[in-house]
């Protein structure tokens, strides 16, 4: 195997592959090293139950399709990815078997909300239209550029008088929770619960101060949820194909154990099998901050020519104590099914049976808040799972006449005092409780409908993908203090690190996890500046 490249990228998740593809297209020789047996990271699709049932183990919702520049720059669709945008994107079914539906079509959504509150329906229409108007602008500014500081943004919003122009955008939102935003603008508890649930599924907890500032943006793309036909892993293949077509190399089963530093500069990596690979221009880590700085680098050995330690104790201490992770994770049940759910709520709203992502039961902000409290105490809430039956819109993800189902429940990483390993004993029990909760809303869900099911716990997440520390699928807390140039630490906020030629480009970085492509895209911009690359992708 060739052992010298311009660029070494650690981790073949969607960020590593995206960065690899861009840099390969820029004419650099690139190798992406993946510890697992296949590329994809969170883009993982496996036949967990029976052959032919394709289960997306991590990423299921593709909400940045046609909003993220890499989708077109890297010609994702030409490499075989097909997206479908469900007609009924999302629903909430409440305990009284009423249902609120979010359609691809705004008017239908407004009609659905109006069944609960005509005032909220019109507020939603105004909010959506306003947010949808600036979603390109805000995404281009806040997600697909290296981050500005909150101070800079606040000043600009103030100078441009944005608060005076919009009832939904205000500087004060940086101090508010999504709950407060919803209480200020909406009246019906069920409507508020649905909108908060939508934020939570995107990783934005409704009770976290400051997250209100991101909420209008979430609403602006509330009907941009897509399924990757044939499984999310197809996207990983497409990114790899694009990189390979331009000379980039992916090596799987290539576990990096250390980053080699010489004269203050990252110059290569060492693999678990002893092979050393050198990098002429840079090394990029897309895995966790903890792996990168506590495992791959020995702070006592990383010294410059002058003998000074490059990773000062203060920085290492910050990595140990100040990296913030989500305080909740996801417990999943993957099902092979003979029937799709037939909801009691179909009597109220027939289209609920066509809904792709369904919130089962949260009918007020208080119910959500209560469950966050339970989870924060490392306890298991009574399940109110959310459901996605991809087969309703992707008939290729299960054999003819069958369905693939996914239940997800907000859950703690650790349980009680028994730690994360307690999940290994409790998963079966809790999985059954989640299915029981589903069957209360769709009585046909039971032995008649379910062929086989299996669970995937927060502990499983952390074991399978160690970069998702503590089962943190966002690879860093979503909080204002951990956003923009403060994520994951101020020293790393612009994708550079204390070590020359070592960059961070994974979901630990701004903006966050989810299939956004943005950490890689933004790191690319910084790397291109440092290496003097022509930014062909920035064609204005």
């Amino acid at each position, binding site marked *: 195997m060739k052992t010298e490249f311009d660029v070494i990228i650690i981790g073949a998740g969607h960020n590593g592959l995206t960065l690899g593809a861009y840099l390969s297209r820029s004419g650099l020789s690139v190798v992406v090293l993946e510890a697992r047996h296949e590329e994809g990271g969170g883009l993982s699709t496996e036949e967990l139950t029976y052959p032919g049932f394709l289960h997306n183990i991590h990423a299921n919702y593709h909400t940045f399709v046609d909003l993220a520049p890499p989708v077109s720059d890297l010609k994702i669709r030409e490499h075989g990815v097909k997206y479908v945008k469900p007609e009924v994107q999302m629903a909430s079914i409440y305990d009284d078997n009423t249902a609120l539906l979010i359609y691809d079509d705004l008017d239908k959504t407004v009609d659905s909300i109006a069944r609960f509150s005509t005032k909220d329906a019109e507020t939603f229409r105004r909010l959506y239209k306003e947010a949808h108007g*600036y*979603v390109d602008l805000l995404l*281009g500014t806040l997600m697909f550029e290296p981050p*500005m500081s909150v101070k800079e943004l606040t000043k600009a919003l103030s100078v*441009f008088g944005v608060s005076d122009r919009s009832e939904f955008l205000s500087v004060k939102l940086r101090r508010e929770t999504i709950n407060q935003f919803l209480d200020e603008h909406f009246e019906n508890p069920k409507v508020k619960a649905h909108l908060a649930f939508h934020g939570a599924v995107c990783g934005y907890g409704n009770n976290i101060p400051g997250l209100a500032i991101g909420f209008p943006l979430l609403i602006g793309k509330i009907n941009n949820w897509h399924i990757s036909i044939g499984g999310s892993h197809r996207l990983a293949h497409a990114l790899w194909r694009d990189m390979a077509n331009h000379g980039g190399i992916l090596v799987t089963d290539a576990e990096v154990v250390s980053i080699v530093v010489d004269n203050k500069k990252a110059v290569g990596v060492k693999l678990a099998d002893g092979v050393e690979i050198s990098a002429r221009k840079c090394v990029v880590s897309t895995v966790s901050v903890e792996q990168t700085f506590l495992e791959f680098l020995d702070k006592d050995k990383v010294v410059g020519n002058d003998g000074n330690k490059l990773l000062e104790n203060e920085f290492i201490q910050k990595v140990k104590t100040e990296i913030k992770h989500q305080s909740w994770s996801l417990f999943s049940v993957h099902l092979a099914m003979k029937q799709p759910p037939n909801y009691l709520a179909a009597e109220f709203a027939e289209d609920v049976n066509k809904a792709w992502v369904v919130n089962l039961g949260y009918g007020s902000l208080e119910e959500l808040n209560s469950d966050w409290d339970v989870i924060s105490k490392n306890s298991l809430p009574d399940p109110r799972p959310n459901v996605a039956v991809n087969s309703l819109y992707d008939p290729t993800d299960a054999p003819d006449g069958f369905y693939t189902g996914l239940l997800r429940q907000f859950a703690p990483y650790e349980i009680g005092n028994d730690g994360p390993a307690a999940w290994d004993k409790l998963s079966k029990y809790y999985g059954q409780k989640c299915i029981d909760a589903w069957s209360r809303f769709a009585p046909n869900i039971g032995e008649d409908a379910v062929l086989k099911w299996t669970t995937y716990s927060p502990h499983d997440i952390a074991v399978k993908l160690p970069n998702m520390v503590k089962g943190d699928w966002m690879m860093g807390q979503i909080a204002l203090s951990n956003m923009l140039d403060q994520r994951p630490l101020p020293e790393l906020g612009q994708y550079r690190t204390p070590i020359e030629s070592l960059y961070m480009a994974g979901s630990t970085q701004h903006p966050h996890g989810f299939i956004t492509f943005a950490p890689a895209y933004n790191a690319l911009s910084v790397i291109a500046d440092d290496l003097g690359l022509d930014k062909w992708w920035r064609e*204005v």
Partner: protein
Amino acid sequence: MADIYTQKWYEEVKNAINNKVADMKELPEGKWQIAIEIFGDGISPYVDQGNERHFLVAIDQGKCLWYKEIDPNSKDEGDKVKLDYRFRGSAVKFDEIAAGVLDPIDAALGGDIKVKGDMRFLLRQADQVQILLEAYSKDVKTDWPHGKPPY
């Protein structure tokens, strides 16, 4: 007073911007090359529906160095220029901004004028950008021979 989108009108816009810049204590940084793409919408009488008018503008430290109209169908002239920003919108929206009826920030926030380019640079210099926008939307006296918005 000049008819909108005429050479004379653009000259007045240029002068208005440069007059503002002459009074600025802190100048905007950098050189920007900007494309302005105006497409006919069947409402504005100044750009026919189905037609487009494209302009290139060069700004250096806030000062307008030059501008020129280019053929929107020609791939040559526009493509040779390395653009920093592209503003695109319907004629009626650009007309309304020039008439002071529509605020340019509202137009951008509402998605009526699409902006491409690194917005961080503009946001970091919000004070200066605001002054330049005011020059465009408030300091130019325009003749409206075919009618003034709102139409």
